[in-house]
């Protein structure tokens, strides 16, 4: 199945950067009330807006877990604007038919989710939560637009 690529399954079985970050300067919880998925994103952001550390605690399906894991890999050491741009790139890849500007591997391995409308929010929840944390807010749900 296109949606459960090897990379996706590997990240879901052994998620990277999993767990709390005691020194987090920013953190937010994201919920999908329809399925009970929950993602907490922890960030250490320096005063100039660079993400010096990112971790996540995710309770959800394989798509949600692997999306959070790949996201945590991808945003280490990014600055605020670059991380925000990446959020938009991933969101476009998951929700839009136009090819746009793909985010590259391994994030592109999530592209297959787009063909499963009921599962798109599983993949976007970590990114929505990341944006929420970066904006200094603490809570988001899939039933509100980020």
């Amino acid at each position, binding site marked *: *199945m296109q*949606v*459960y690529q090897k990379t996706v*399954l590997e990240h*879901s079985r052994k998620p990277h950067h999993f767990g709390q970050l005691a020194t987090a300067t920013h953190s937010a919880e994201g919920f999908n009330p*329809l*399925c*009970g*998925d929950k993602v907490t994103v922890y960030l250490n952001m320096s005063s100039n807006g660079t993400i010096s550390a990112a971790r996540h605690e995710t*309770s*959800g*399906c*394989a*798509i949600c877990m692997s999306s959070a894991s790949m996201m945590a890999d991808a945003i280490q050491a990014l600055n605020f604007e670059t991380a925000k741009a990446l959020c938009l790139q991933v969101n476009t890849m998951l929700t839009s038919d136009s090819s746009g500007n793909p985010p590259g591997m391994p994030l592109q391995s999530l592209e297959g989710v787009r063909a*499963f409308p*009921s*599962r798109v929010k*599983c993949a976007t929840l970590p990114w929505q939560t990341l944006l929420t944390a970066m904006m200094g807010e603490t809570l988001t749900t899939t039933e509100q637009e980020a």
Partner: protein
Amino acid sequence: MNSLPFNIDSIRAQFPILHQQVNGHRLAFLDNAASSQRPDAVIDAVSHYYRNDHANVHRGVHHLSHRATDAYEGAREKVRAFINARSIREIVFTSGTTESINLLASSLGQTMQAGDEVIVSRMEHHSNIVPWKLLAERIGIVIKVAPINQQGELVLDELAKLFSEKTKLLAIAHVSNALGTINPVADIVALAKQHDVPVLLDGAQAVPHSKVDVQAIDCDFYAFSSHKMCGPTGIGVLYARESLLENMPLFMGGGEMVISVSFEKTIYNDLPYRFEAGTPPIAQAIGLGAAIDYLEDIGMDNIAAYEHQLLELATTALSDIDGLRIIGTAAEKAAVVSFVFDDIHPHDLGTVLDHQGVAIRTGHHCANPVMDFFGVPGTVRASLAFYNDAEDIEQLVKALHVAVGMFR
């Protein structure tokens, strides 16, 4: 399976939707608790009505209006006989179980005051929780919750302790949609009667699967939906004991529920019409009538016996899968198997199963308190109907093995 009470192949032949490929596979439709499918008899009845008989009911002097009214009221009589109500005055058509319960909550709510109590159970569908929560927020009623045990059965001893002088209603599922538990409703009603408390049964999951006799159960209110019993969507029933319905405050205002209206005085219609404002779901009622004829032709006892065999087959086959845990193991169960794997999320299973033509439901099944009780985010639920067969279950099991191989 043992000797079957009917020819399953000829039953399946009457459901056109079953005979299609989904994602390149034979369709195994195992999401019947969410909504059932329709036999030709129901599809044809609705189509025939629209092609030949449609007009508004109860108001035209013309021929078609008479025909539509006869068909619509004929459906009400079929519903009455189907659940053995005493009179058609006790059969209120609604848009479905949810509206039936909201009608009751809205009406009874007008007679309640702060501190009055409504008892529900832990296994209720959200539609038998939220209407009472709304009353709690609006007028301050108190909701008491009867607990369930690890098998997903109601704890009757604990339920018995919840009654008080302030209890105005016991509202409880006949059959749990998430677990399949069949509650001992006649015993529950007898218990409530000791405290002089009326009982609403949410029968959405019971009526499609076994004979329901509201007089034998002796409940005061009984709610169910057409679309879960092979009838159209958009119509349901509230059965209400006439002596109670007669004195209940009205629900919605409009045409149909009145005899005459002036700005000085309104005369309300007789039962059950005064609870049916506006043009009713006529075609849906006729379709429901056709569904009842169809089910009775097969025989509700035959349906129950066959589905019980399917349930045993499914339970045995699923129990053999490594790591699969069934949620809801009540001694008395309808043909619903809810299950989880500790290491595979229900939604991932749902997607992989769908890819193999198997339609099941994943998630909380509109029963969050049940999921919380069992400590799971959701379950995978296979819910069976009399038109399912052993091949559907084999296909489910095979698809689960594929999913397990993929995620482990």
